[in-house]
């Protein structure tokens, strides 16, 4: 966090609740961490008989990870409010991360036969061609 004027959402939260954005960001991070662990801990959605499948967990972990990552980077690391050059610096490695993910996809043993269907769910080109 640096020294910036309190505006927008930060000001609204401060005016309405008397607590600053760091406090609320902390609450959100704690809640989503609890949600993340619970998603793995429970085999069914509590109070229902709906099974929490592997892919549901996968989806929850990714979405929660994005929310938590944004909360930490934007508010605790103060990329929101700091000059844009810091955000660009932080995001620069993402290009390489995407390249690595692409490499993982292409170098997968099943890439030749499975990649098309893997990229586009329910598209059976790979098996029917």
């Amino acid at each position: 966090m640096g020294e910036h004027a309190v505006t927008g959402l930060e000001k609204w939260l401060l005016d309405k609740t008397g607590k600053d954005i760091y406090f609320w960001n902390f609450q959100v991070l704690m809640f989503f961490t609890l949600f993340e662990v619970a998603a793995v801990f429970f085999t069914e959605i509590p109070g229902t008989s709906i099974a929490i499948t592997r892919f549901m967990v996968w989806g929850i972990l990714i979405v929660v990870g994005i929310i938590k990552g944004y909360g930490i980077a934007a508010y605790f690391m103060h990329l929101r409010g700091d000059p844009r050059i810091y955000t660009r610096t932080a995001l620069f490695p993402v290009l390489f991360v995407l390249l690595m993910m692409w490499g993982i996809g292409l170098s997968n043993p099943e890439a030749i036969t499975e990649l098309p269907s893997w990229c586009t769910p329910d598209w059976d080109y790979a098996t029917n061609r």
Partner: protein
Amino acid sequence: MMSGFNNHVDNSVWGRAVLMAGAILTIGIVAFAALGLGVGSVKHDEYMEAKGEYKEALKDTSLTESELYKIHHHEIDAHLSYLTYWVAGVTILAISGIYAIFLGVGGFFNSIQPQEDHGHDDHHDDHHDDHHGSASPIVFCAGVLLFLIGFPDFVEGMRALLSQGGTFAPGDMVLSTIGLTIIMIGVANWWREDLPFIGYGEQIATSAPFEGEHIRKAGLWVFIMSEVMVFATFFSSYLRIRTEWCTKWAFDEGRCGVGMTEGDIVMTASDYLRPDGHAGTGDFWTMLPGAVNTFALIISSYTIVLALKTAKSKDWEAPKGALKFLLPDKKTAVRNYLIATLALGSMFIVLKLVEWSHLVAEGFTVGTVQGSIFYVATGAHGLHVFVGLLIMLYLVFKADTIGYDEDNGQGIEYFGLYWHFVDLAWVVIFPAFYLY
């Protein structure tokens, strides 16, 4: 670091670092005596008893399979319970010993240096003098280089010293010990240069793309950028390898392993840790250390934000109620928030090693591909946490002596960026390695 408009710091201040080192070591010894030797020895006796019972049960042909399983499970529980206390005790002793060495040696080294006289430096005018830079980071890096070159021999030497195999040869320890000594000198000198800094003379970048920004902040962000790459390498290696595995989870869902038996499937760390993971071992308690660690890092991210917010605040007021005793004035509040961050980070390391000891005891060792990538990735993260804690020791010392305020609070801010990054890396590592 800064030779600008600095506080005059008397060498005797460093004597306080030696005292703090003594206090930290005392805490470590007491914790080890209580957890490792006290509760640990009781748990060890229980484990030995359970082990004996299981051995006897194996010879008893009248027992049913479920009875035998129950006795075996009791033995496993007793073993893990013993490991929890013993490893926690030893880890607290080890990390407090390292803290004490860094703080004590650094404090002693600086207290015996010739006293500098900042008050009569006629080359500088008060708020606008030049930044002279520092050689300490280069000295530190040279020490790290030597330490790492000698590290394989150092490990062998340590193994022999701890009676874990091999023959001890003093020569094995030389290069790494020289490296560690140079690291200590570099760090101590770095502290000495930073301690008097009260916030003036911060170097400002004069050219694009960081023009007008503090060079230390820009440098830290570039460093964080390189760290993202390091963790991305671990993560992508894991993903790449994992795409070839038929894990327990995928096997149970019928997504792979046609014709395979349970013995052929790959057991990942999460298969041991998830409540419905590895048959008979995963439950709420095996997941607990990782989950607690996740909360600990998030809370520590918040406490360091509070330390900075307090330091930067111009109109800080002591809270009312019970918190008033912990945060009676601004200087103490900043120090105590930093101590809380240090304590939470230390707890992270202790719980991590407890968890590792359980995983190893259950057969998830570094000798397998899935174990190797897990221990390397989570170990690299743990190392980052630990390095952060060593830096935080100094922040606590500075907060306790010189103090942080709205002028020099950026020291906490820049360290905070690194600490938040460590938290951010855990946001990725925890679900990928522990939950999925």
